[in-house]
């Protein structure tokens, strides 16, 4: 992994009306690997990601991705360097999985699919384990399958940088873990630089190479998972008491209940009290 930054933010700021949503932020993200953006609601994670992915214009500052300035570069050139997938995707059109993934080739093919495009589509479909679903319509799929189809589309786009806004939203444990493993593979096997917003810091801890923690529109901590996954750091970022435990070599944040849980081996009346568990 080389150390040249592939994403550079220079004084990037964004506000909505009088409220400041982001920045000014300076940031460099190195080539390769998985970078996770974490932070509380409204911290500016998605705002930053969508600005890097040129879906949102910054009020100030400059963003460079793969050597291109996202504000001035040609859209078609940018689309070969950086792809972004937002959390919600509603289409009027009715598409099959394969048709959707084929759209990922648009920056390269302008809609006229060559043999190399079909190969890339096949690979992306296989990579996300969608071969048996490729002729199904998107509205016939489960949430997890649909999410995989969208990720397959941005992988078929074959960009150096892949940005994902909460790819784990609405996925259950099994599908969330699988999705993270597949993204990890995309970084390791395909050599992509993957930046994603993730809600559950434990996924960031286990799968990411770098974690960038945001709060109140600014970067408050960044580094390897070992440096960020500490009780005092996370407690500060999320403004809530967080404990970090180690289990099978994985650092996991525990934050579900501020006070220590009574030992379950002793008979504890609160455990069988339903009103207690509801108020959490």
């Amino acid at each position, binding site marked *: 992994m080389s150390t040249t930054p592939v994403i550079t933010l220079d004084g990037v700021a964004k506000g909505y009306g009088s409220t400041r949503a982001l920045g000014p932020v300076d940031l460099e993200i190195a080539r390769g690997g998985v970078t996770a953006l974490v932070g509380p609601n409204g911290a500016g994670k998605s705002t930053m990601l969508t600005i890097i992915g040129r879906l949102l214009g910054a009020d100030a500052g400059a963003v460079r991705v793969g050597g291109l300035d996202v504000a001035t570069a040609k859209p078609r050139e940018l689309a070969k360097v950086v792809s972004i997938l937002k959390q919600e995707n509603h289409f009027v059109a009715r598409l099959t999985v394969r048709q959707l993934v084929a*759209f990922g080739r648009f920056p390269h093919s302008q809609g006229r699919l060559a043999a190399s495009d079909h190969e890339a589509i096949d690979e992306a479909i296989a990579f996300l384990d969608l071969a048996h679903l490729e002729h199904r319509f998107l509205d016939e799929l489960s949430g997890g399958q649909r999410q995989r189809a969208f990720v397959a589309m941005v992988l078929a786009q074959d960009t150096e940088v892949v940005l994902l806004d909460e790819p784990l939203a609405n996925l259950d444990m099994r599908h969330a873990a699988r999705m993270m493993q597949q993204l990890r593979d995309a970084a390791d096997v395909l050599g992509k630089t993957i930046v994603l917003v993730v809600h559950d810091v434990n996924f960031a801890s286990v799968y990411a190479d770098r974690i960038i923690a945001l709060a109140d529109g600014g970067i408050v901590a960044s580094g390897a998972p070992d440096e960020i996954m500490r009780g005092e750091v996370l407690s500060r970022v999320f403004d809530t008491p967080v404990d970090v435990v180690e289990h099978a070599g994985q650092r996991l944040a525990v934050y579900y209940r501020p006070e220590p849980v009574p030992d379950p081996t002793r008979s504890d009346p609160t455990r069988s009290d339903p009103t207690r568990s509801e108020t959490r």
Partner: protein
Amino acid sequence: MAEVMIRMPRAAARTQHPRPLGAIIAGAAALVFVVGILVWDNPVPYGQPGFWIIVESRSVAVATIALVAVCQALATVLFHTATGNRILTPSILGFDALYTLMQTALVFVFGMAATQVEGPAKILVQSLAMMLFATLLYGWLFSGRRQNLHVLLLVGVVLGVGFGSVSTFLQRLLTPSEFDVLASRLHGSIGNANPEVLPWAELVVAAIAVVVWRRRRVLDVLALGRDTAVNLGVAYRREVVGLLVVVAALIAISTTMIGPMTFFGFLVATLTYQFVRSDRHGVVLPLAVLIGLASLTGAYFVLQHVFYTAGLVTVVIEFVGGLAFLIVILRKGLR
């Protein structure tokens, strides 16, 4: 996971046969109706020179119908693509009322002088002005984040009523002779098309159709919405504004030729979406044009040559289209 490489047979995966059944039916129907309009019930028997004179005069009506069908079908589908919905059409959003207002304002400001200049130049200026207004208005309406269809529908209806009221007010201030000239222009029907302008209009529409056809793959991407289109490297804003200009031009031409048609475009587009399984513009656009041709020629043929009630063509089309609009809204709702 990655090692499980189940590959579908290539050929099966690649060739997506568009099922041309709908296109064949619509095309055949349009052909039958066109021939019907031209020769059915011809008062002069076949073989005499008068026969062909009548066919020739009727061909003006066929050319007008073709022009309107192409304009409305393309405009509606393109508007749906540009705005990311499949219910609202430019006409429903008050485009026709805008036309009425502009015509009225023209006569109001310039008086009879405005009516004396005729011909392609004037229609060109009119169409350009209308394109400009419509692009500004709808570009503004559909820009930004207030993409709530309920609000847009409401705004469109209010705009339509507002334009209509201003038109009515201006019309009251006109002299009777000015009003007479204006009225003949506003209540157009297929019979009123100006044959002098027709070839020019067809030329422009043909040019637009060629441009649209060449960009059909970009349109497919635009239909995926702003975020996905930007991600795939389409200059979204430029494309959408360009599309709205094209839509404005098509509707302006159609309205200038035969007057307002509120629900015809909606009817054609909705029928087309029912027939096609693919959402690719390479399939949808030709089929929409064919269905537009078939339904308009069919209505004209039946009403003009079977029931002898020519003036009703637009009325019947609008009645059926309006019913379809209500049914779609009630069944599917605005999404």
